[in-house]
C-alpha cells in the first residue's frame, strides 16, 4: 500500500485538476456546487493517504477538518442559500466556455513550466503535485474573473483555497497545526460573511448579478 502511495497521490492530484476544469465548463449552479464537494472529497482522500503513508497524525486532523468544512458544511449552506434565494438559472459567463477552456490549458502549461524546477527539489513523496496545485489555483482565479454572478465567484474563491490546501498537504506534508486551524477558521468566517452579503445584495438589487456592482468608478 505504501509503495502505491506516490501514484495514488498523483491520481488524486489529476482528479482535482480534472474537477477544476469541470467547474470551469459547468453551466448550472447546483452541479457546480456538487463538483466543488467532489473536489473536497479528493482533497480529503489525498491528505488521509499521505497521513497514512508518512505516519503524521496531524494530516488526519487537517483532512477531517477539510472534510467537515469543504465537503459537508459549505456545500449544504450554499444549497440552502440557493433554495432561499431561488437562484435556479444557469451561470452567465463573460467569455464563452470554449475560449475559457483554451485559456485554462495555457494556464496549466504555464503553471507546470513554472513548478518543474521547484518540484524536482522537493523530496516529499508527492513533489510533482506542486505544479498541479498551482494550476488549480490559477484556474480557479480565472474562473472568478470570467463569472458575472456572485455565487460562482464565491465557489471560485473556495476552490482556490482547496488548491492551496492541497499544495500545502502534498508538498510539505501539511502546515503546522496552528496555521491549519487559522486557515480553516478564516475560510469558514469568510463564507459566512459572503453568505450574509449575498442576502443583502439580493435584497438591495433583487438580483445577484455583479453588473449592478459597478457604480464606484472614475467618470
Amino acid at each position, binding site marked *: 500500500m505504501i509503495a502505491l502511495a506516490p501514484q495514488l497521490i498523483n491520481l488524486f492530484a489529476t482528479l482535482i485538476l480534472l474537477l477544476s476544469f469541470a467547474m470551469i465548463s459547468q453551466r448550472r449552479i447546483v452541479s457546480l456546487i456538487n463538483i466543488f464537494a467532489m473536489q473536497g472529497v479528493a482533497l480529503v482522500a489525498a491528505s488521509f493517504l499521505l497521513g497514512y503513508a508518512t505516519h503524521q497524525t496531524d494530516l488526519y486532523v487537517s483532512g477531517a477538518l477539510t472534510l467537515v468544512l469543504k465537503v459537508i458544511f459549505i456545500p449544504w449552506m450554499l444549497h440552502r442559500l440557493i433554495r432561499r434565494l431561488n437562484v435556479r438559472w444557469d451561470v452567465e459567463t463573460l467569455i464563452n466556455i470554449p475560449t475559457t477552456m483554451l485559456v485554462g490549458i495555457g494556464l496549466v502549461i504555464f503553471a507546470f513550466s*513554472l513548478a518543474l524546477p521547484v518540484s524536482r527539489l522537493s523530496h516529499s513523496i508527492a513533489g510533482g503535485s506542486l505544479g498541479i496545485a498551482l494550476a488549480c489555483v490559477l484556474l480557479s482565479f480565472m474562473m472568478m474573473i470570467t463569472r458575472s454572478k456572485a455565487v460562482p465567484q464565491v465557489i471560485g474563491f473556495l476552490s482556490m483555497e482547496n488548491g492551496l490546501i492541497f499544495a500545502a498537504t502534498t508538498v510539505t506534508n501539511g502546515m503546522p497545526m496552528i496555521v491549519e486551524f487559522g486557515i480553516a477558521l478564516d475560510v469558514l468566517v469568510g463564507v459566512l460573511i459572503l453568505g450574509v452579503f449575498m442576502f443583502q445584495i439580493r435584497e438591495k438589487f433583487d438580483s445577484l448579478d455583479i453588473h449592478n456592482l459597478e457604480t464606484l468608478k472614475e467618470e
Partner: protein
Amino acid sequence: MHSFTHPGNWLHLDWVLVVVCAWLVIGCAGVAALRRFHFVATVLFPVGACFSVLLMALALSATFAGAEVAVLPLGLPQLPFHLRLDSLSAFFLLLIGGVSAGVSTFAAGYFRKGEGTPPGLICLEYHVFLASIALVVLADDAYVFMVVWETMAFSSFFLVMANHRIPEIRRAGYLYMLVAHIGALGILLCFGLLQANTGDYTFANMRAQHLTPFWGSVAFCLAVFGFGAKAGLLPLHAWLPEAHPAAPSPFSALMSGVMLKIALYGILRVGFDLLQTRIWWWGVLLMAVGLATALFGVVFSTVQVEMKRLLAYSSIENIGLICAGMGLAMLFASHGMQAFSALALTAAMYHMISHAFFKSLLFCSTGAVLHATGERSLGKLGGLIRYMPWVAWPTLIGVLSCAGLPPFGGFVAEWLLLQSFLFTTGLPGAFLDMLVPVMAAMIALIAALSGYTMVKYFGVIFLGQPRDDKLAQAHDAGAWERLGMVWLVTGCVLLGLFPNQMIALIDPLTQLLVHAGLAHTVAENGWLLVPVHMDRASYAPTIFLLGVMATFGATYLLVRKLYHARMRRVPPWDCGHPWQTARMQDSAEGFGQPIRQIFEPFFRMDRHLPTAFDSEPSYKVQVDDPLWHWLYLPVVRLVERVSKVVGLLQQGRIAVYLMYSFVTLIVVLLVVQR
C-alpha cells in the same frame, strides 16, 4: 552647539538668532491675543519693528566681521541645522531689517476692526514669515535651507489668503503656492546635483566639489529655474501680479520688497558661492532672462488699471534689471575681469536695496490710499494730494526713486548699471561685444518706460480732480503709518545721497563673491562716486542736489524781490466749454494707451467697442498675459488629458480588477523566471 557663554561675547549669529526667536515669540503672543485688535496693532507690531532695527544694527556690524558658523540640535539626526553668517547674508539681513522696520510700523497703524482674518493670526503669520526670511539667508545646508524656504512660502501663502472671501484671492493664493512648490522642487534637485554623490548636504561640502561643466550647467539652470520661479522671472512670473495685490498692502510690500530679493539671493549663493566652475554662457543666459523679464514687466505695468498690479509688474521689471546686472557680473567673472565684475555686482546689489526701500514705500502708500478710499482701481481715484498730503509727498519721493531720477537711490543704481555695461570692450569674442551695448540700450529704454509708469501712477492717484465725490472724505494716514513711511523715505533719500558709504557696505560682499571691490577707489575720492577712475566717470549726488536747490532758492528770492509775489485763485481754463467734469481727465487706460499701441504684440487684448445700435454704449478693454495661454493653460490641459486616461484604469467592474491582479502575477512571474 557651542556652550552658552556669557552674552557679552556672543557672536553676531547668536544675536540674530535671538531676534528670530523674539519674532516667533511675538507671533505666538499674537495668537494668544487673537481678537484683541488694539493690543496686537499698537504693541506687537511696533515691538517687532524695534527688533527689526536691532537686526539692522547687527547686520551693519556683522558685514565687516568674519564669517560665523553655528550648528543647532534641530533637524535630522545625521544632518543637524547648520547656520552661517558671512558678508553676503549680512547684507541681506541689513536689507530685511531696514525694510521690515518700516513695514512693521506701517502695519501697526494699518489694521481696522472686523476685517477678514483675526489680527492675532495675521501677526503670527507675519512674524513667522519674517523669521523664516532671516533664516533663509543664514542657512548653511540643503535641509535647513529647504525647510525655511518652504516655511517662508507657507506663511506668505496664508498672508496672501488673509481676506479669503474673495474668489480671485483664493485663486491667486493657489497659483502662488503651486509655483512656489514647483520652484522648491527644482531647488531640491539642484542641491541634489551640487552634493555630487558625496551624500553630505552642507554648503561647505558643496563648495569643495568641482562639478564637470555639464553637471555644473544643469545645476545652474535648475537653480535659475527654481529661484526664478520664486523671483518672478519671465516664464514663471504669472503668479506675482496675482498674489501681491491679493495680500494686505504692508505684507505685499514685504513680499515685493524683500521676498523677491531672497529668491535672487539664492541665485547669488548657488551661482557665485557654491558652484566653483564658471561658464560664460551662464551670464548671458541670466542677462537674457533678466532683460526679457524687465521689458515684459515694465510694458505690462504701464497698461495696468489696478494700482497694486501696476506695482507688482514694476517689481518684475526691477527684478529683471537686477538679474541682468548679476548676469553681467557672472560674464565678467568667467573671463577673469574681477574689477568690472565687482562693479556690475555692486550695481545689482545697489539696485536691490534701493528697490526694496522704494517699492515697500509705494506699496505702503497704496495701502494707505486703499484704506482711506476703499478703492483699488486707478480709474476711481484722483486729487488725493489735497486730502492726504502725508501720503502724497512720501509717495512722490518713492515715485521719483522708482523712475530712476537723479537725487534718489534708483538713479545711483541705474548709473552704476549703465557704467558697468559700458566697459565691455575688453570681453573676448565679437558676439559679446555686440550683445552688451544692445543690452545697455534696452536698460536705458526700460528705465525711461518706468518713468512713464510712475508718472501715470502718481498723476492718476494724487493729482488732478477727484474722479469720485466720496474721495473727499478720504482721511490722511494715521500716526503709525506716517512713521513707517517716513522711515522708508529716509532710506530712499540716504541711499540716493550717500552712495559712497553704501558701496563701502556692499564691498565685503563683492570681495567674498568675486574677490574684488569698489570700496578702495570710492573711498579715495571723498564725496565723488568714482567707480573706476576719476576721468572715467564720476557723480556726486550731494553737490548735484545742492546745485538744484541753490538755483531753486535763488530764483525764488530774486523773483520775489525784483518783481512781486501776488497771486490770485481762478477757475482753470475751460476753453469756452463750461461743463468741465472730473471724468474729462485721462483715465488709467487712457494714459497707458500709447504704450498699448506701440507694444501691441506684447499683449493679448480683447476690446469691446460700442456699436451704433447700443442702448448704453460702453467701451471695455481687457489686457492680459499671453504667456498664460501659451504656457500655463497647455500644461493644465496636458495633465487633465493624462489623468483622464489614467482614470480609465478604475472602471468599477470587479472582473477587470481581478484581471489586473491576474495579469500582474503572470507578468512578474515571467520577468522573474527569465
